């Protein structure tokens, strides 16, 4: 029997047991305590949100519930019955299904083969496949979950792959569905579709647990919400009785400064001019479809967008290392001089020589060599600089001197440059990268997801440094999927969707709603009416090609 959200919010002492009840769950990975003494109750037929920063322990907790990890301590009750979930098979039999953040699909199998994997009927495949085909048709009809059962996974879009994951869970007759960060890879429209599906499932009496770090999703769809912070459960409340501000404070443990102190920008001459960039990747997919923009000295251009809409390709291309096998066209000018797009002069080394610093989106596989010491990492990408050479050898003393100074300047802790990069926390790792790139005083800084997985203290520090760089007359290209970050740092905002720039806005004259529409691919022209009062002198329309400029009043 389904309870309504209002009932669940007040935790009524009714006879109906909870769908899920966790008591005192703890889990450590080596020296890291991922979950500490966690209690959680989820009412039947409700949508329960679990929110927290990256690394707060949300995914670990749900993986325990799904039998993927074994807890060190604690009890699990499903529908009031205590149950020992030793493996995923037990969880599946208890009616628990999970959609992981990184899908667990076999890429070269068909949808049907993926669906039956692990729950085949009998030793031969043919009857299982036939049965699954029937069930799938029915489920598709019931929940708007259409996918071609004979398509292989690698042919499907990300959104459709997620549907397959949900279908997998439903085919296993899951009553309790856990979704881990399901919207990270979706466009807002796809996310809305997903939420409709979830509402439909709830209406059928299913229980849904939604893990996310996005406050908006919690407010939009959940009935109740639990907040995790550093492995602990810090609150469980009814969504109707809380606010985004209150949740944000719970997440980070103190009041969050949503605004960054900064003075208005005083843009100078264009530093970077990008014209009609196209990039077709090795699979023949066009990832960039005619990108054009300028960044002037002393301003921050923020690029907003759902991840996977070409931002990564743009950063990599500007940074000098587009994906292997990609075909590129267009033009980039740096301080008025053309940059090579292909050939030997287009690599990252040359880009750095031309004054481009780059804090990459993924610091752990790109920005740092995790096994290298901090001082070795401080030279990374600049290791060929003349001041680091001494005859045939490298001048390691000179590098260490710089490393010590940079770590001091950026308050990197622990202050030991002989430690390997992996021995630093996420925030301090990011500080190492930011220090390395900022201390070279680049004319242009490319910075992707500057605060992903970074603790709040380091976030404020890094934001302050970016603004200082701008105030020193440098140009900054900021790419982030966090709209708040874009809004608070940028002097101008460009929104990317499907390899295009859908439009430009000024941060103080737009809303998240408007940006959300652009992120969903709704073009400027379609929403011309929504746009008013932007003074033309604030928009660099004359530098932009027609397709993005035509929305602006001329």
């Amino acid at each position: 029997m389904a309870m309504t959200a209002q009932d669940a919010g007040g935790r009524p002492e009714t006879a109906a047991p909870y769908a899920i009840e966790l008591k005192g769950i703890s889990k450590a990975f080596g020296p890291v305590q991922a979950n500490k003494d966690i209690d959680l109750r989820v009412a039947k037929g409700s949508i329960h949100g679990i929110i927290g920063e990256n690394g707060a322990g949300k995914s670990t907790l749900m993986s325990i519930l799904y039998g993927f990890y074994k807890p060190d301590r604690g009890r699990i009750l499903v529908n009031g019955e205590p149950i020992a979930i030793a493996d995923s098979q037990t969880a599946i039999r208890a009616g628990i299904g999970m959609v992981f953040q990184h899908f667990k699909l076999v890429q070269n199998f068909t949808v049907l083969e993926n669906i039956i994997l692990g729950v085949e009927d009998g030793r031969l495949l043919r009857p299982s496949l036939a049965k699954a085909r029937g069930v799938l048709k029915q489920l598709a009809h019931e929940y708007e979950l259409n996918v071609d059962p004979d398509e292989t996974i690698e042919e499907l879009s990300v959104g459709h792959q997620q549907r397959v994951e949900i279908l997998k869970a439903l085919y296993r007759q899951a009553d309790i569905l856990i979704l881990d960060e399901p919207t990270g890879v979706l466009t807002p429209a796809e996310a809305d579709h997903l939420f409709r599906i979830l509402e439909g499932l709830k209406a059928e009496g299913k229980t849904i647990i939604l893990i996310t770090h996005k406050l908006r999703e919690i407010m939009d769809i959940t009935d109740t919400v639990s907040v995790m912070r550093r492995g602990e459960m810090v609150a469980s409340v009814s969504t109707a009785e809380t606010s985004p501000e209150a949740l944000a404070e719970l997440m980070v443990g103190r009041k969050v400064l949503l605004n960054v102190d900064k003075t208005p920008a005083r843009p100078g001459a264009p530093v970077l001019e990008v014209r009609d960039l196209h990039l077709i990747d090795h699979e023949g997919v066009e990832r960039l479809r005619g990108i054009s923009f300028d960044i002037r000295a002393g301003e921050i251009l923020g690029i907003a967008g759902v991840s996977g809409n070409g931002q990564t390709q743009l950063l990599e291309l500007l940074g000098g290392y587009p994906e292997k096998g990609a075909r590129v066209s267009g033009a980039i000018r740096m301080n008025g001089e053309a940059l090579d797009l292909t050939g030997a002069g287009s690599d990252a080394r040359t880009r750095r020589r031309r004054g481009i610093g780059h804090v990459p989106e993924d610091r752990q596989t790109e920005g740092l060599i995790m096994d290298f010491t901090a001082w070795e990492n401080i030279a990374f990408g600049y290791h060929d600089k003349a001041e680091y050479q001494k005859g045939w050898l490298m001048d390691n003393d000179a590098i260490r001197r710089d490393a010590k100074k940079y770590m001091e300047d950026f308050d990197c802790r622990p202050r030991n440059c002989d430690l390997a990069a992996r021995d630093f926390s996420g925030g301090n790792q990011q500080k190492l990268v930011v220090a390395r790139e900022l201390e070279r005083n680049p004319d242009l800084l490319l910075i992707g997801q500057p605060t992903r997985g970074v603790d709040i203290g380091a976030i404020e520090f890094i934001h302050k440094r970016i603004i200082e760089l701008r105030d020193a007359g440098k140009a900054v290209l900021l790419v982030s999927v966090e709209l708040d970050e874009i809004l608070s740092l940028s002097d101008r905002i460009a929104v990317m969707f499907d390899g295009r720039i859908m439009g430009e806005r000024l941060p103080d004259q737009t809303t998240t709603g408007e940006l959300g529409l652009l992120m969903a691919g709704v073009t400027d022209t379609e929403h011309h009416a929504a746009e008013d009062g932007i003074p033309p002198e604030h928009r660099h329309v004359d530098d932009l090609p027609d397709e993005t400029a035509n929305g602006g009043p001329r």
Partner: protein
Amino acid sequence: MDKMPKWADVILTPLISLVLAMAISALVILAIGESPAAALKTMVDGALGSSYGWGFTLYYTTNFIFTGLAVAVAYHARLFNIGGEGQAMMGGLGVALVLLSVPLPHWLLALPAAMIGAALFGAAWALIPAWLQAKRGSHIVITTIMFNFIAAALLNYVLVNILRPVGSMDPASARFPESTYLPALTDIAAAIGIQWGKNTPVNITFLIAILACLLVWLLIWRTRLGYEIRALGRSEPGALYAGISPVRIIVIAMLISGGLAGLMAINNVMGESERLVLNAVEGAGFIGIAVALMGRNHPFGVFLAALLFGFLYQGGGELALWTSIPRELIVVIQALVILFTGALDNMVRMPLERMFLALRKRRAA
């Protein structure tokens, strides 16, 4: 956070692995009805008990230093070069071609010329697998295995059809000119008035091998190229981000690796047999894998491990001579060392990590 201290990782784990490998080897000796203690004594006496024994031990050590360094350099770029055997074979061909075609009046001239030939041929044999890996993504392990067999066939062909002197039935080249014979260590020792290692094959190449250890250490940890090799080995996306070309580094690392393997020929072909024979390498290329694993891909570790295997090799020969234990025992020991230090590494490491973690927790509490 590190799970255990660095010294435990670098010294304790390989040491325990080695002890395990040796313990099982002892069991094997027991199983074939011999006494491990007596076998060990025979080996120590034969390999280390006299300057004669040392002369052979160091000769084998020289071979293994080169092939071990070859594997180690490639490994730093995360390339598993199993092709040392073939590259060393080709190195031998390079030596033979240089010494048989260019008249060189003195070994001081012949040595650098032969070294260039050896390194060039070894490097060339590594070049194709390297290029295929870098450009086409062909798995270097498989291609280098294939190239070992191709090298054997090629060498066989060249020896039988081209280099074999008229009238000879042996698949071997003619003797090298006497002027190119390398000084043996016993000659060098005699020159400074010490009688050492008479009638042993160890020669000046041993000193070159030690020099090679030093140079490889400098290369890997003190040069820009070494920095780039290590960076690529740890993260290819990272290398690209830093402007390091993976194609360039893969090719260069494999050229150095192949060159080092090829240089082994200076020792066995030029220094010892003084002509090119069919099976000159005798598996030293494969022993290089064990040596590099055992030595943790560090030149100093490689030196120590090569010494160990030099001892095993010479000691194994002595065993075959004086007992009924065949010399294949060392192949078994070699297999066990590779197994325990390379593949079963975690079997030793995981309990150790747990132990250190528990220790730390207790100290913290």
